[in-house]
């Protein structure tokens, strides 16, 4: 799985750096108006509309049990689809998007991240880049958690 990844999009959650496979990312939106949906899990903030598609928005910060949550101008919504279908679109709220980079030559190590990560427990690996550890989140596992 991780061998197929060629580039990553990295972002901050509570000052830690995490990343998704770029291929799964559809769009990056500003944190805007989200329509609240009743009777959902607390990390589901509601639904948004992107080009006529309605998709739910999950707050990764809540999912990872971050203690201090504050929306700033940097707060973004990364719209992903784990299987490429419109039906599987989901927006992920993060503290800020950092960069997109190619994996070329960088070594993906076994992830040793065991932070208090709440619902996010599966990682594809960790990259050491510019004195920082970038943890690659297993998106498929994470959305499965949301679906159940």
């Amino acid at each position, binding site marked *: 799985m991780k061998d197929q990844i060629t580039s990553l999009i990295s972002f901050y959650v509570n000052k830690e750096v995490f990343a998704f496979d770029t291929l799964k990312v559809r769009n990056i939106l500003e944190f805007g108006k989200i329509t*609240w949906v*009743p009777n959902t899990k607390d990390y589901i903030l509601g639904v948004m509309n992107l080009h006529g598609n*309605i998709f*739910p928005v999950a707050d990764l910060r809540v999912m990872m049990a971050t203690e201090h949550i504050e929306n700033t101008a940097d707060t973004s919504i990364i719209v992903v689809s784990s299987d490429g279908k419109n039906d599987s679109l989901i927006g992920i709220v993060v503290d800020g998007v950092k960069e997109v980079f190619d994996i070329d030559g960088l070594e993906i190590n076994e992830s040793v991240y065991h932070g208090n990560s709440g619902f996010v427990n599966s990682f594809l690996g960790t990259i050491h880049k510019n004195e920082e550890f970038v943890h690659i989140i297993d998106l498929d596992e994470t959305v499965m958690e*949301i679906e159940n």
Partner: protein
Amino acid sequence: MIDKFREKFVEESLDNINDLEEALFLLEKDMHNREIIERIFRAMHSLKGGGAMFGFNHLSEFTHHLETVFDLVRNDKLAVTNDIISLTFEAIDQIKHLLQIGDLTEKADIANQAAFIKRIQAVSNQEESSASTTVVGESSGSQVAVSDGSKTFLIGIKPNEDILRNGTNPFYLLDDLHAMGEAKVAAFAKGIPDLGQFQPISNFCYWQVVLNTSESVNDIKDVFIFVEDECEIDIKELKVGNIIKSEALDELVNNSVADQTLITKEQIEAIGGSDDNDQDDEKRDAKRKVQLKEHKISSIRVNSNKIDDLVNLVSELVTIQAQLNLYAEKDGNGDIVSLAENIQKLSRQLRDNAFEISLIPLQSELMRFQRLVRDLSKELNKEIEFVIEGGDIELDKNIIEHLTDPLLHIIRNSVDHGIELPEERIKNGKSPKGTIIFKAFYSGASVIVQVIDDGKGIDPDFIRAKAISKGLLDENVELSRKEIFDLVFLSGFSTKEVVSDVSGRGVGMDVVKKKIGEIRGEVSLDSKVGQGTTLTLELPMTLSIIDGLLVKVANNQYVIPIANIEKIHAIDDVNFGNTLNNVVSIGDQQFPYIDVRDVFECDTANSGGEQLILVKFEDRKVGLLVDQVIGEYQTVVKPLGRFLKKQENISGATIMGDGSIALVIDTNRMIHSNAAKKYRTKK
């Protein structure tokens, strides 16, 4: 029902023929391409097989000969020539004609086809004789007439009244003439008297025969050698080509038979010779082409994706139109307002039209059910009659797709658990043969589908006891009959002790309910012990656009489908006599109600100006308490995506004119799940 299949066969065959024609064009460019030859052969083969199966015997026979040619071609026994290709093109026209009219009934057509088959056979026979390819051209009717020196005669045969007394059968004379070549006979029977004066041993008829033959006049006379004294024979040679197959002659013969007037030499010669013959062919071709065109207009086959696209586009249009309305209202310019209204009218019509297109009859799936009942009842040694009512009811194709599995399960249940074995049925005083009725009908904006069996039924007390034993129900809870039957749909409930491999498979009625719920349908069950069980599905006719009522609950906008709404009451009229039990009285009636804010777990306080919306729920009316009613809204329902599928109270969302989102409330499920809470206490 067979007509439906025939229609479908014709439709598919026309597709097949298009494919065939396309392949032929390719073959013309590349005469040795094996792949194309195979493709042509296959297309012909399925035409032949299908034709035979659906009673197109002439089509099947005709295609058989054509197929033979291509069988030789694909086995390298015959080389593709331009002649073969043109002949095949011509044959395709004939096939279209045959698909159009079914089996041939006109004599001329039959003879025509026989001639055509001969031409085709001539081609396939080339392989053996290695003859030159000119056969194709030469064997066509008109030229034969010229080349082999055949002549056409008009022969009048008028036997005496006494001819039958000698044991002569005039029909044998006609047969003899037929044997000499191609002939057409006109019979004149106007001389036959009324039944009272009728003499069975006297002849009252006479005939005229148009004969095309290469034999001489003397040979024809020889036919009549034994009856010369008892008949008036009149043989005239005509100055025409072979016109036996021409339509004009047909007409002439038919007319003269109808009018009982003799055909004259001049009349036939007026039809003309070999040249005119071609013209006739052309005329007929033209006629056929016109018929084909007419058929194509009546129905077209479209890829279902295209219909989905159309419906999506119409949905987008409706959304944009809502934006336009919003803008027009704000702007206040009269011209724009009236434009917006016109567009609204049009988009409504377009919407209705697009939906109608995506509706398909239930019929398409019913065969599978019939088959299931047949196979299963054999397997279980039961005798079951499967009756279908309302198979022509139409539903959105997306709904039908979702319906098949649950229905298969329901019917399987009826066969396995419902209908008893014949011996048991006899013992209970029933007919040994059980009946399962599949019934579909419209009810308001919904379609009701029922599966009714006359089997042993289910005892409500048994269900209740079972639910209690499984911990699904508290012992002290009083339930109505309907609520008891609803227990069957709870997960973890299965009425049969041993899960059989017939209806078991690990899915219970809870899965059926879930699947039907996915298409916003409702399922309910009713049963009488010893008399049978009825399962009722209530389905929406379409999924994507509904007329809705826009309401506000705690700062969010929601849409309630108008089809479900009975009445709207302002809070002032409503007397909350007993808020503990959530019952309101309006006028002299009491209704249970649900506070939507509670259901949605909104923590905001009552904003004032509440309104109560009475909605239909099963056989009752239930009130929904909302903050504010905003107005009617044409709603394009969009799915919430896979992550919010489990959401019980919301069936979808819609994008408002200003780009914001309103959620669509599924009133049935909301009321149901909130009512259900009361007997799920023991958890």
